[in-house]
């Protein structure tokens, strides 16, 4: 029976508790939040016996084997290190750390101590992503991907989240070097990184503020991001984060002989063979094949619903379960460290391109600055300046 603890008792902690409760052979022994009242409310609702406001006290009193850290990212590095020093394995919510340097240091530290870590890239473990991975491994693409596309939309209409972020320049999201992007894009980038080489030879980034966000205020926050990436073996990738495109959360992989589209919102995995049809058949057969694919997906989803596999947090439960299995069975961690670090490096490079060094530093130190002339302080002047290119080593 694995002994689990949770640090940070906000909204995400609820999802963790819900998922952990569906995993056999583990028990939540304690929770901790610097606001003891927050810890208490979680304990009370989920019948957890011990709650704390001090991390060290919690570790020493309840000896958890695994600690889930669901606090704002700025505290991840220090808290994770504290738990690793104590000897607990660590599940860190996304974004793993604020910088790639911190991510590398943490992973190295964990490995030195023979402990395991994972990042909260739970969307990598949804039913669609598992099926896509299976197809890719089975050779459906016909070789290494030629091109990848990851789309991630975020609805600003959910004012309960974005309202406090936009209204408060001191909000922890606003203090991140990548602000709104920093807290969200790791899900979409991690999907790409899985299929890219370690060495990224080209990264082109463009970012701007949508008219909707402009109306909501917060002049210095950007919410539209496009990234074009090329790796050493010339696989290219496009990442699109948008608050204006609604309900789009997809990964598309194009290989030499076939392509796969995994749609996380519709729960579909659509296969497409790269083949030509004679004459007018090209207008009839491909649409019919697509229709068959969607029908198959609908049937699979119905079967999964009947079999009780269609939980909305399936990905999180799957990731947590695989992480626990890796701890108990000495199997590899579910999210390879290479992917965690590469995602963090990619984020660093993206933010370095859209935010000037000085301005990024300001995000850390002083964020309540709003320009009276309405220009975007995080971007360099005009649109061309915000579109920059870099080669990474």
């Amino acid at each position: 029976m694995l002994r689990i603890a949770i640090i940070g008792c906000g909204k995400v902690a609820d999802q963790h508790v819900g998922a952990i409760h569906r995993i056999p052979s583990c028990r939540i022994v304690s929770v901790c939040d610097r606001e003891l009242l927050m810890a208490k409310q979680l304990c009370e609702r989920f019948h957890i016996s011990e709650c704390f406001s001090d991390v060290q006290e919690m570790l020493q009193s309840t000896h958890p084997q695994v600690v889930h850290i669901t606090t704002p990212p700025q505290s991840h590095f220090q808290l994770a290190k504290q738990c690793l020093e104590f000897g607990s394995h660590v599940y860190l919510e996304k974004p793993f750390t604020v910088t790639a340097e911190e991510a590398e240091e943490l992973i190295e530290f964990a490995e030195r101590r023979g402990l395991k870590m994972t990042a909260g890239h739970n969307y990598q473990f949804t039913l669609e992503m598992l099926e896509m991975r299976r197809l890719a491994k089975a050779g459906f693409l016909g070789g290494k991907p030629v091109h990848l596309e990851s789309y991630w939309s975020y609805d600003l209409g959910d004012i309960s989240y974005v309202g406090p972020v936009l209204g408060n320049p001191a909000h922890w999201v606003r203090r991140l070097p990548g602000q709104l992007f920093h807290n969200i894009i790791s899900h979409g980038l991690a999907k790409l990184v899985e299929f890219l080489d370690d060495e990224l030879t080209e990264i082109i980034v463009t970012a701007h503020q949508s008219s909707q966000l402009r109306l909501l205020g917060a002049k210095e926050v950007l919410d539209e991001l496009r990234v074009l990436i090329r790796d050493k073996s010339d696989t290219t990738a496009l990442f699109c984060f948008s608050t204006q495109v609604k309900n789009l959360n997809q990964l598309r992989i194009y290989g030499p002989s076939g392509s796969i589209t995994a749609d996380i919102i519709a729960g579909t995995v659509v296969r497409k063979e790269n083949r030509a049809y004679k004459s007018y058949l090209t207008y009839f057969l491909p649409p019919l094949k697509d229709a068959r694919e969607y029908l198959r997906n609908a049937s699979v989803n119905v079967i999964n619903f009947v079999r009780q596999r269609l939980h909305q947090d399936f990905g999180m439960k799957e990731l947590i379960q695989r992480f626990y299995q890796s701890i108990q069975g000495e199997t590899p961690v579910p999210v390879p460290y290479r992917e965690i670090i590469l995602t963090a490096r990619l984020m660093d490079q993206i933010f370095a391109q859209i935010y000037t060094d000085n301005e990024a530093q300001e995000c850390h130190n002083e964020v309540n600055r709003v320009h009276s002339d309405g220009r975007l302080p995080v971007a360099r002047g005009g649109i061309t300046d915000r579109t920059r290119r870099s080669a990474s080593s």
Partner: protein
Amino acid sequence: MTLKYIVSPADRILVTGSSGFIGVKVVEILLEYGFANLGCFIRPSSRLDRLKERLEQCPSGKNVELIKGDLLSRDDCRKAAEGVSLVLHLAAGMEKSFAGAFMNSALATRNLMDAFLEYGQPKRFVNVSSFAVYSTLNLKRGAILDETCPLEEAPQERCDAYGFGKLKQEELVKQYGERDEMPYVIVRPGVVFGPGKRDLSGRVGIDTFGIFMHLGGSNHLPLTFVDNCAEAIVLAGLTPGINAETFNVVDDESLTSRQFLRAYRKKTGRFSISIPYPVTCALCLLWDKYAKWSNYQLPAVFNRRRCSAEWKGNRYSNRKLRELLRWQPRISMDKAMEAFLGQFEAKSR
């Protein structure tokens, strides 16, 4: 005139949630009563058009101070509570998550009460709660729901994050009242309606898949028009001799869910389907059972506790409000409905 109140016009009054649906009216009524030393606490992201418009309309409105901040910040609470004698605490967390609701209702209230006790000159803390805190599970259909009715014991099971936040908020207020001798009053409004709020209460029914399902049948609704409710809150803050009391706020005249929906449909032309209570009850039970059986593949948003609280059908009393606060609705139900329906354009058919 002011001698009959616990505060004088010179005393500082803080109104949280002052840019909200009820908050704007509360400020307006306070100004009307002659209390102009007001601090209006607002979130930085709040829309201020309605509040500013009302302040501009009132000559003493120009003295009102707008305080931008976050109740989760102790510093902001301190700034707001300095020198304050009376707090009318209307700010509420509307988050769908339990943690979010708790944070924005209970934790924010804790911060505000701490600041009030330390930096204010506490004469009263009025906590605006909600009917969502009541449980009618063991109350018969048609029985009267008043301030003595039991509170919800399992908000998690009811899947009601808002109610959970409000219950915990009330618990904290009572705790501060007992432990720190903070003078307080709790106000629980029923269904507050009026121009500026277009959505129908869940007690009437639910809007799903483009169809409005009428679940309230001929139940009486605990309606209170926004002006009437705001005046009750103001009186709860001013009236002497009511420390630690709780008041339900409903208007004198009530409408049934069917009457309310009929008037709404006549104005908007919306289509609705009526579901009888026994059917609603059976569907909620089935949903609840399936949610548990499937390990919450479907969240248990429909369940027996919610069914009972929202659609069982009770009657409501405002006797205590009338007797202790000498409150009476300033707007009749006819006029209130006229004002509420006036915000919808006539149906195009």
